[in-house]
């Protein structure tokens, strides 16, 4: 009933987790049966180990939060030799978010992940707002975006999802450019660039001054962008941005997303993803929907 296809990837349901909000999945296994999810997108992985940005990296804002973690991760080699073996047998699609500061770095990471049998897809992160070099720089310009996707496409032969930033004039132009360059799917939106100031201390809350805004406050923007992109490209769209319940997920599906990712809501309720799966089942039963694909893109 809930099965969906993302290029040649089959998801048992459309519910996945967003990179950077679910660790490597293990952190949540006390709370939920992770294998009930359609997929998990694990922490952004770079060519080398990264320490990320200095503390403070987080600030709560109305109905949301800013973060500036800055891609702290163990690096692709430690992922392949260590983390992968701990998580590879989880019965769901394990997707690695691939990040970098140069085209060479993206390609190196993608090439190494390509060798891992139980990783059926990568999510190419050309949209991280919290690193000085690369990241969002690639995702804000259609030519640059197409170039990095084209180069990764040459070394990566499984499902290639490209994660887009909302911090652009036209996300549709970027989506079309990466589709033309060989992306199998696009996921959107990454966080929106934001800022918050502690007026008592007269300084920004984040060590990096600006950071990425996520949570329910960004959801209407994300739904709008998913709807625009879904009408403009022929590859499947993965929707994310502030999803915290089944109704939120349904908005994205109706706007045209084939699958969705849950991010910040995992911090509020570590069991939220499974509740969303159950909520989608309940919705389908209540409305006599036999196949969730019936409602995808109906708007």
């Amino acid at each position, binding site marked *: 009933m809930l099965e969906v296809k993302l290029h040649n990837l089959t998801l048992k349901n459309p519910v996945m987790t967003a990179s950077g909000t679910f660790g490597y999945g293990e*952190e949540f296994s006390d709370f939920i049966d992770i294998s009930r999810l359609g997929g998990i997108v694990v922490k952004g992985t770079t060519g080398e180990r990264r320490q*990320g940005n200095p503390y403070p990296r987080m600030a709560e804002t109305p109905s949301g939060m800013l973060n500036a973690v800055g891609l702290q991760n163990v690096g692709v080699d430690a992922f392949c030799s260590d983390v992968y073996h701990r998580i590879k047998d989880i019965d769901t699609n394990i997707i690695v978010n691939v990040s970098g500061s140069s085209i060479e770095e993206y390609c190196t990471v993608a090439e190494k992940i390509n060798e891992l049998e139980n990783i059926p897809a990568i999510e190419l992160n050309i949209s991280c707002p919290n690193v000085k070099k690369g990241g969002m720089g690639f995702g804000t310009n259609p030519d640059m975006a197409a170039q990095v996707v084209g180069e990764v496409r040459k070394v990566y032969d499984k499902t290639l999802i490209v994660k887009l930033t909302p911090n652009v004039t036209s996300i549709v132009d970027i989506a079309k450019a990466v589709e033309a360059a060989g992306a199998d799917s696009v996921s959107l939106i990454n966080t929106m660039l934001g800022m918050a100031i502690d007026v008592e201390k007269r300084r920004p809350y984040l060590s990096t001054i600006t950071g990425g805004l996520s949570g329910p406050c960004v959801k209407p923007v994300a739904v709008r962008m998913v709807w625009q992109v879904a009408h403009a490209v022929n590859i499947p769209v993965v929707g994310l941005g502030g999803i915290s319940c089944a109704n939120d997920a349904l908005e994205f599906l109706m706007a045209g997303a084939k699958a969705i990712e849950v991010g910040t809501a995992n911090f509020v309720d570590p069991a939220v993803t499974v509740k969303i799966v159950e909520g989608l089942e309940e919705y389908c039963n209540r409305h006599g929907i036999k196949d969730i694909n019936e409602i995808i893109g109906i708007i």
Partner: protein
Amino acid sequence: MKKHITDFTIVDRKSYGPNYFALTLQHPDSMPEIVPGQFVEVEVKGTREVMLRRPISIHDVDYKNNTLTLLVQIVGKGTRQLSELKIGEKLNLVYPLGHGFTLEGEKVLLVGGGAGTAPLLYLSKHFASKGVKPTIILGGRTKELIPVQEPFGQYGELCIATDDGSQGEKGMVTQHSRFAEKYDRIFTCGPTPMMKAVARHAQANGIECEVSLENMMACGVGACLCCVCDTDEGHKCVCKEGPVFNIKKLNKWMEN
């Protein structure tokens, strides 16, 4: 150690001056094991300003009555909201979280200040149950700023240090006459300058020392990487690798 999400019922509420309160929460069935120094993430309902859970140390655990107690300092909108909860209401907790204190030592010193006294009560209780009577030094600028004192007396020898001399010895905790004795372990939780002073003393005297850190957190389980401390081994999550750290890993933290 398995983590849980559970709706507790508030069975007791006590105020300690204008800025502190304690909530005693009853588990619906049987309380899992909790190590002193671990914490909970509390759900705060009702305002658009407060979305994330709030990390609160576990002040006491009573397995016989299936209760745990949280001692909370009102510092912002989230803790203000929690202060308005009433007996009988439910509170959703994600727990037990983090890495607690190392429960070793024969002659131990516990040093606390402000809200940092919270986890030391359960730690004192643990030592007392093993037949070890800890020395406990609690400090504050004035006696009113040491919220909870009396329960400590049943588990160890309670000493007080106040900056203004309104109670106990006048001066900081590190100037207390009992501070410089030879201990085999020191545990501390409180304001950062206090913990650093305690840690430097322990390091200079070759005493094992653990500090309990507090940083802004989101997930509480080591997934979001927001609450990191700059340790000698790189950025570590206070929520997962901490909140309790041995000072051997915190040379960089001690220097700053």
